[in-house]
């Protein structure tokens, strides 16, 4: 299999990672799509450096987070909401936790870019070692930061949300 095809196959298998990163770092639908293309482009460029020392998802998380955190585009005049987000608000799924998840999602969106990355990796069941390797931190640092983030999210979710 040629390297391009091999890369595409790997990317297709882990496409959801890019979708997650795009969703958490951009609010606007067009910005999300642009960021998606940018991550694919950056992953394609740096794929030769992937030497299977780490798992492909871990490597892809690194590339995607690096691109998303340093993705600076001029703010669009009109923001276009993602239809998936709207339909979720208008027709919430039959889930007792849906409203709380919505509130938690909003609270995560208010975190700093670095904290968002840690939460994203944590939600994907990455171990502390993996999070530390992707972020370039120590394992202890990851643990302390996650505790702080949990505390902050708890406080944010308890407060009545006035932004909506």
């Amino acid at each position, binding site marked *: 299999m040629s390297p*391009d095809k091999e890369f*595409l196959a790997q*990317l*297709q298998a882990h*496409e*959801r990672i890019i*979708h*997650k990163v*795009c*969703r*958490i770092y951009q609010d606007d*639908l067009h910005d*999300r*799509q*642009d960021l*998606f*293309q*940018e991550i*694919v*482009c*950056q992953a*394609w*460029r*740096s794929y*030769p*450096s992937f030497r299977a020392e780490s798992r492909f998802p871990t*490597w892809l998380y*690194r590339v995607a987070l*690096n*691109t998303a*955190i*340093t993705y*600076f*585009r001029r703010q669009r005049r009109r923001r276009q909401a*993602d239809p*998936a987000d709207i339909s*979720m608000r208008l027709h919430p799924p039959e*889930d007792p*936790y*849906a409203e*709380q*998840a919505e509130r*938690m*999602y909003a609270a*995560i969106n208010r975190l*700093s870019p*670095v*904290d968002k*990355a840690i939460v994203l990796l*944590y*939600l*994907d*069941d990455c171990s502390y070692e993996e999070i530390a*390797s992707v*972020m*370039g931190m120590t394992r202890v640092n990851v643990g*302390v930061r996650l505790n702080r*983030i949990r505390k902050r*999210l*708890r406080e944010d979710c308890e407060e009545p949300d006035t932004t909506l």
Partner: protein
Amino acid sequence: MELEDLKTQLNRRLEGPVGAGLPDLDGRPPRSHSMLLRLRRNLWIEFGLYVAALCLIAIQAHRHPSTAIRIFNITAAVCMVALMVKLRQVIRRIDEHLRSGPSVRDHLASLLDILQAYSRKYLYLSVGFALFFTIYMILLEYLFPTQMQGAVPPSGTAEVPVWVFVAVAFVLTLLFTGLIYLLARAYIWWMFGKHIRRLREALQHFDQGPED
């Protein structure tokens, strides 16, 4: 409600497609808006311009009758080559950065370093160019004074003293160089100021240790 309790709901919410599909990679890199790629392209354009300027300086140094101007041109050419070497180093660092897949912290630090290195080089280059250009013009005017067409040649009694010429030249050099420095700074701030600030903020966030 804790983060752990909502893992499934949040994952489901985040995993939804964002409306963009994977492109066909037929050996060509997909179109990118990356700031680093744009910077790399600009650096190559600048590099080409310096090569052209270097050729002109070399021709001038070869042909000009005045030894002072020739020595001045050769010095300028040497300085320019040194700057081009530095510029090439920045390009090489960008290439290395684009090829590697570093951790988030290393990526931010490396990107900030590249932007700061480029900003410094751009400022040095602009100020150096302004200095060179002003001194060159003044030297030319001193060695080969221009005369107004049809004007009567000076009789020799109304010549400008050397110290006045030097003082005026010094003030003009200072003014022009200062102006170019300010313009270059404003340009750098407009191009990368926001990026540098955000990168510094993100790195500061990383450096807040667990004991803080």
